[in-house]
């Protein structure tokens, strides 16, 4: 009987585990956010052991929106392979793990991409001593490739399309890729161009490595949540949008207090001075103010983590605002 009861209890628990994530997070007291095992600029522990990066900021922004406190986050590391089961099983509340938005992940896997926090594309990195200047010269090369990623599929397509051969060396994590590339087990490492910049920055001698000019795919990277919990999806989506809108409106962590007395209506709505947008999301009225105050706007997060002044040296490019030649765009705050 005991067994039967426990089975019943377990199944009832499983049935109810899908209820409101926002309530679960609030009751738990902190956010569980799935990140990479370590990709400098996106999510990696910094010198003081704190998680830092564009994706880490995304996690913190959601924590600020819910709790008003950037430290109320538990970072859970996931590999390219484990990230989806981890999210699907409820082990994490959201993923901010440089994950590419694709139709099959959005539809078939039962997830919901809430936006794009980095527009990326797949590139190749080789030792400069190899003397290669284009990816089409890579016939017969051994390529390190993270399994279970979109880049793995793009790689096969690219070489097929160009009618050249290669040998794949499957790896699980970025660190494994680095190790194999630096040891010469593979000639080329391919992943998102941002990931290559990050890997190059971590090399003992970055000048020894070149990123080839070809970008062979679209990789819109963004945070995702489980499909079906729209309330929670909205919280994450608008935490990201708030950062983008803040940049557009010129609101930053430094001037946010002064902006509270701005005469621009959208700024007042964003900062919770006018309207009841926090209430709609079941968050505090000043949720967006707190995000900007504690994390900063999108530009601040970008410049601090991946921008030209960081070791990654990635120019804004596609990730500039739509008003400045990029494609970063958020729906209006009203």
């Amino acid at each position, binding site marked *: 009987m005991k067994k039967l009861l426990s089975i019943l209890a377990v199944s009832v628990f499983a049935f109810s585990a899908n209820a409101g994530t926002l309530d679960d997070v609030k009751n738990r007291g902190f956010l569980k956010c799935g990140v990479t095992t370590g990709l400098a600029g996106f999510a990696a522990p910094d010198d003081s052991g704190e998680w830092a990066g564009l994706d880490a900021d995304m996690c913190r922004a959601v924590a600020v929106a819910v709790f008003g406190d950037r430290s109320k986050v538990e970072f859970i590391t996931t590999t390219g392979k484990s990230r989806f089961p981890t999210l*699907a099983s409820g082990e994490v509340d959201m993923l901010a793990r440089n994950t590419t938005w694709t139709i099959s992940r959005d539809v078939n896997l039962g997830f919901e991409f809430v936006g794009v926090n980095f527009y990326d594309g797949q590139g190749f990195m080789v030792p400069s001593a190899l003397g290669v200047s284009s990816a089409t010269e890579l016939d017969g090369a051994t390529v390190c490739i993270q399994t279970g990623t979109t880049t793995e599929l793009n790689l096969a397509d690219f070489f097929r399309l160009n009618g050249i051969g290669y040998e794949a060396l499957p790896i699980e994590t970025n660190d494994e890729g680095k190790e194999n590339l630096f040891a*010469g087990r593979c000639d080329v490492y391919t992943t998102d161009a941002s990931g290559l910049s990050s890997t190059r920055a971590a090399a003992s001698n970055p000048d020894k490595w070149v990123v080839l000019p070809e970008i062979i795919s679209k990789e819109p990277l963004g945070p995702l949540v489980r499909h079906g919990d729209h309330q929670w999806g909205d919280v994450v989506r608008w935490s990201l949008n708030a950062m983008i809108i803040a940049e557009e409106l010129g609101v930053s962590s430094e001037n946010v207090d002064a902006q509270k007395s701005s005469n621009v209506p959208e700024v007042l709505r964003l900062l919770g001075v006018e309207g009841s947008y926090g209430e709609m999301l079941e968050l505090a009225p000043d949720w967006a103010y707190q995000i900007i105050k504690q994390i900063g706007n999108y530009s601040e997060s970008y410049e601090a983590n991946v921008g030209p002044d960081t070791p990654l040296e990635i120019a804004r490019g596609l990730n500039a605002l739509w008003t400045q030649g990029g494609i970063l765009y958020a729906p209006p705050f009203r």
Partner: protein
Amino acid sequence: MRSNLNFFSDEKFRSIFFQTLVIGLFALGIYFIVQTTAYNLEKRNIATGWRFLTDPAGFDISFSPFINFKSTDTHLDVYFVGVLNTLLVSVCGCIAATILGFLVGIIRLSSNWLLVRVAYIYVEFTRNVPLLLQIILWYSILIQLPRIKQALEFLDIFFISNRGIYSPRPVFENGFSYVFIAFILALISSYIIRRWAKKRQDETGKQFPVISTAFGMIIFVPLLLFFILGSPLSFDYPALKGFNFKGGMVIRPEFIAMFLALTIYTAAFISETVRSGILSVTKGQREASASLGLKKSWIMRLIIIPQALRVIVPPLTSQYLNLTKNSSLGIAVGYADLVHGFGGISLNQTGQAIECMVIVMATYLTISLTISVFMNIYNKSIQFKEK
């Protein structure tokens, strides 16, 4: 009430009752698990079904010595490549572990102090360090070998680098099939001669030089035919072209790491099994055969080993099963086995976790049961034949 109580004091009824209850609860448990899973999958909009098996995989596999795999092949092909790679490393591992295990087991019973100590340290070290660490250790050593451009070369035809060991590949030309047929025929006739010789010896006591006859037949007949047919065999030599060696054969470091780790780890266990098997044969057997004037090597081969095998084979079977299942650790170094390819990449690219895992589990079950069946047949054949 009273009669009810009597029912329970009936041993037969009681045992049937409780067995039914346990099976019933078990079935109920399974039912709940299946129901809950199906419900949750549906609720989370996760598509289920087997259709993905015939979809193109879209990725390449690093190691497929038997099937020429292309990224346009299906997930089902990924599965077959994985099964073959799992079987390859398992079969190679089982054979090598048996040989090494027997050697070490016998060495540990020898009277050479140094050898015994070395074997003892080997067994205790490998048995007590997790296999995963050993696999990673071997792999880490192998990728520190010279880079491809500085590959060590032997006789200009063998090359060793951290991308594998390259060797010439035999190319069979017209007529080689006759040599192969001759080889098979020689094997079969050697077997027949052996049976005939044994029967004759049992009946008349006359011996026949089976081993040298068989050796001559198996080696020289095909070799003679080979030269008569004008050496229908050539070699494709590896040569460094561009990024990698082209031509020849290559054994990848991922395979070598798996093979070494599985062999060395399992052989330690097998050696203990062998040692216990030999020790289980009483000293009297050895003394009795010695007093009959048998040669020392004969005592081992005809008296000790046949009796020891009865003790050795059942635990040996479970070592083979362990080795096969442990080959799934290949994922740690990117060896393209069943778990890595189909149970990993296909699973992840399609998201069909439950389907892939069910197939992978059923496959391991089938492989394990097959090994068990054959080992049980072998075990029966070496047991005492009571007359």
